[in-house]
């Protein structure tokens, strides 16, 4: 059957609409899928946490820190605090800070760090645990942390690390990643909204 001008226009419109609908349904692509993973870690109160299962049905805003980091990590923690404040008492969004220095960042150390930033314990969870599990979790999230040149674990060491904030959807899938110190807070809020 020859393709008439009208048929051609109808076909084009249909394809266009299908593309539009499909792009709306897809949203941002899945960067890391932890929906079938289960990491047994500890929070700031030394309570067991199964990550990400315990946060199912919540959008997670995640930063990666160590408390002996004097400059970059506090900037990330402050940024998460500001976003939490901006969102108000939003039970759909939870904030998680995962340490890549579980050796020093015990639950009590993380609790004090969290209090320093005035983080709301209902909205924030600090994650530590045994090194193997934490390393595995970080590795699956593509977070790299290594001792800075010339540093050893015997000293008051500093760590070179990925500078990142991630947003995980309610199914445990990372959908957004940003350079942590650079991303504007408004941008984070906009992307959180897109996952509701």
């Amino acid at each position, binding site marked *: 059957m020859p393709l008439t001008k009208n048929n051609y226009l109808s076909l084009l419109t249909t394809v266009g609409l299908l593309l539009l609908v499909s792009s709306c349904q897809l949203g941002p692509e899945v960067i890391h899928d932890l929906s079938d993973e289960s990491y047994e870690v500890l929070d700031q109160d030394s309570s067991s946490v199964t990550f990400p299962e315990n946060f199912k049905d919540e959008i997670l805003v995640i930063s990666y820190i160590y*408390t002996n980091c004097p400059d970059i990590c506090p900037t990330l923690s*402050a940024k998460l605090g500001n976003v939490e404040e901006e969102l108000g008492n939003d039970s759909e969004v939870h904030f998680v800070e995962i340490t890549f220095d579980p050796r020093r960042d015990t639950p009590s150390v993380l609790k004090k760090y969290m209090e320093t930033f005035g983080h709301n314990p209902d909205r924030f969870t600090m994650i530590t645990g045994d090194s193997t599990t934490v390393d595995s979790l970080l590795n699956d999230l593509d977070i790299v942390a290594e001792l800075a040149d010339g540093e050893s674990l015997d000293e*008051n060491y500093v760590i070179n690390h990925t500078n990142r904030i991630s947003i995980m959807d309610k199914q445990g899938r990372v959908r957004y990643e940003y350079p942590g110190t650079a991303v504007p807070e408004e941008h984070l809020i906009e992307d959180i909204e897109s996952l509701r």
Partner: protein
Amino acid sequence: MIRFWTIFFGLLIISACSGRKSDSQNPSDRELTGQIELEDQWARPGSAGGNSAGYLTIFNGTRQDQVIDGLQTDQANTTELHESFEENGQSGMRPTPNMTIRSGDSLVLEPGSFHIMFMDIENNWDTGDSIQVILTFSETGSVQTTLPIKNFPDD
């Protein structure tokens, strides 16, 4: 036409070569006061034995270029000028000793950039506390300043 491009590239080269070489940032039009001026001081909270960072702006209001020869506080075992950097997606810090601030320039120490690195601090530094820091400059000697402990610069 050839003459135009010759002049254009000539000016470009002259302009590129005439830039002053300095570690410091933010050359300003501020009047020289004959003094080193310190502003916007603050430091982050920290736990005993851990690390913290201090921030401030240093304006070199003297007529000489000044090298930061040293930083000292009795509240930490090691105090150094550091710079945060990002390379290949990794963030880290490195010492930046002997920074020069040209006459009339300011060096801004701020989060994610240059900062005073305090290592192995003596006691807990909590918001509301303050610490004393001595900065030593090559031409004019030492200046003591107070850094209030805050979570955010505007607190």
